[in-house]
């Protein structure tokens, strides 16, 4: 198999002139009065592993089902490889889906499950079963072909479902919570297995998940959805470091949110008035903000440093008392009540501090760099 071109290496989405492989144009889906997906537009490139991330009922599954053809959009169009999917039924689409429940046919053996798609194309039984055996080998289940699905473990069923969805070499593979039914340890192993398979085959993956860690690990890009709308699309790092809205900041990882007012803009620094943080906060200058405007600041817990002595060099320093310490092995989380009465969360790797660790009821200084305080207007 020749090495396919992987979107993760070339990052085609960074080039605005590139034509996306899958185009979702102003898609809206209404069920009666309820709008599940509201005017969503999205471009996904060939070879991407795109994650749709959001809570339950945000419309991510509906969007995926429209791509598969199980739901018809109320408005808008979906194009795959330049072809309009409007009137194409699910059995004629160049997409395949891996279901959350896996949906393995309980009355068929594993190999028949995997070969089913090829048999529907009219391929001869011999060839279809040979291809199915190959596919099972790829997911390391070559000796399980004759079993029935109920004789397999959860992880094995998941791999059968994957093999069955991939055997027709779809242009796009749609995965609905692919790891949702696995336990935590198996899930982590399988994430990398999924990336390996995607890179081997070069198929475009669209994954729906509610698990932010999963999305961060898997995705080339993430689309964060809420209430039927895509709030932000970006690479995992971008989404985490530069969230566009309070929702995204809060949804991905944990965050301390502060309300603030723009006070003064200097060429090198901008001052925000933030009563919760005990006065002024210095941040790098930003365009598009006016004096007196109300903004929000997002501060990641790991971007805050705690110390017993006042740090000299830091530009933003807050004073508070440790209320609670949680030891999580590789790191500790602190709940610090600032003197303003506001509580913040701080996390710190446990290998960082030498000597006596900071403990309950200690008076501490919490400091952070200006870039750590992300200014949000939404």
């Amino acid at each position, binding site marked *: 198999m020749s090495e396919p071109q992987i979107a993760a290496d070339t990052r085609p989405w960074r080039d605005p002139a590139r034509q996306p492989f899958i185009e979702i144009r102003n898609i809206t889906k209404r069920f009666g009065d309820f709008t599940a997906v509201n005017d969503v537009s999205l471009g996904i490139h060939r070879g991407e592993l795109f994650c749709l991330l959001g809570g339950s009922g945000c419309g991510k599954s509906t969007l995926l089902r429209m791509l598969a053809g199980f739901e018809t959009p109320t408005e808008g169009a979906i194009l795959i490889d330049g072809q309009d999917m409007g009137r194409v039924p699910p059995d*004629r689409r*160049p997409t395949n889906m891996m279901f959350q429940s896996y949906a393995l046919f309980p009355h068929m053996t594993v190999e028949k499950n995997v070969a089913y798609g090829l048999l529907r194309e009219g391929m001869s039984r011999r060839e279809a079963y040979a291809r199915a055996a190959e596919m099972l080998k790829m997911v390391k289940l070559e000796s399980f072909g004759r079993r029935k699905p109920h004789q397999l473990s959860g992880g094995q069923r998941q791999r059968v479902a994957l093999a069955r969805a991939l055997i*027709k070499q779809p242009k796009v593979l749609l995965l609905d919570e692919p790891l949702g039914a696995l336990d935590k340890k198996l899930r982590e192993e399988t994430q990398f297995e999924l990336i390996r398979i995607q890179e081997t085959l070069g198929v475009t993956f669209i994954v729906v998940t509610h698990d932010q860690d999963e999305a961060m690990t898997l995705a080339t890009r993430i689309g964060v959805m809420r209430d039927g709308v895509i709030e932000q699309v970006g690479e995992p790092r971008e989404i985490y470091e530069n969230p566009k809205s309070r929702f995204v900041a809060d949804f991905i990882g944990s965050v301390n949110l502060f309300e603030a007012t723009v006070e003064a803009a200097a060429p090198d620094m901008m001052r925000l008035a933030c009563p919760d943080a005990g006065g002024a906060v210095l941040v790098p200058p930003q365009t598009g903000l006016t004096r007196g405007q109300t903004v929000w600041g997002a501060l990641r817990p790991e971007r805050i440093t705690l110390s017993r002595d006042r740090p000299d060099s830091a530009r933003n320093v807050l004073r508070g008392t440790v209320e609670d310490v949680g030891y999580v092995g590789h790191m500790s989380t602190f709940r610090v009540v600032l003197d303003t009465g506001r509580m913040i969360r701080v996390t710190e790797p446990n290998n960082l501090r030498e000597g006596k660790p900071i403990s309950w009821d200690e008076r501490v200084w919490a400091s952070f760099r200006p870039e750590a305080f992300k200014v949000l207007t939404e």
Partner: protein
Amino acid sequence: MSAAPGNPLTRSAPWRGTARVFGWLGISGRTLVIAIPMLWLLVFFLVPFFVLGRISLAEAIIARPPYTPLWERDADGTLQIIATLENYRWLMEDRLYANAYLSSIRIAVVSTIFALLIGYPMAYFIARSPEPRRSILLLLVILPFWTSFLLRVYAWMGFLRREGVINNFLIWAGVIDSPLTMLQTDFAVYIGIVYTYLPFMILPLYANLTKLDDAHLEAAADLGASPMVTFFTVTLPLSLPGIVAGSMLVFIPAIGEYVIPALLGGPDTLMIGRVLWDEFFSSRDWPVASAVAIVMLVLVVAPIMWLQSVQNRRELK
């Protein structure tokens, strides 16, 4: 790409050819699939009621068929509709029919209560039994249901008659001197109904009681409730849906019952199903039988169906 349109092999499946024929006729496969059960039930379930209604407005005559037609052509060719409410007036005037309705309801209610009293302890015991015993007992409850209903009623004839098993046993045991009359009484009808429909009472109760969480009972005991108090304050209220379902399943067939009163009941055991049967087979008065059926439909079946739909809606919520 396998799923791309235009693959000749996926298109040449034989049913697709058939589908295309219906497509030309403007009938989609979907419509066809809906039409089969719909038409069957329209013709053989719904339309019969309209026929029933129409014949209940006719007069009985000695002919084939034994009722007057709904319309007639006069000598000058005009269509004349012949309909009469005479049959319904007859039902109102003759006390027999009103008594039969009331007595059907009474018999059904009493039988349902007895079925509940006998069925509840059995369902409770089975639901609380450990596994191998539970399945066996459940099978023993279901087994009679699969054997002929008629023969089970017949078995009670041999049991209840003057020279029957019960009387022989009681005389042998010295409890009574002369045989009791049990067959051909209302008592025998109650026994017949309870006996026949007992599995219908036990099964929904059992299904409900197995779902009962032990933790509820333990919590009640933990809070100081005696077993009796626990039963009446926790188990019984929680099993109410099962009680309602089981009672409906006994009451509904009991109310229209014919065979049980005919075989076990006496000549004065009035039940509406029996009146209808006699009107049809003995008096051969089809229009009056139809009127009885229509009134039965309105007074008995409609409330039950209404009650069921209310219950269904509540369950959905």
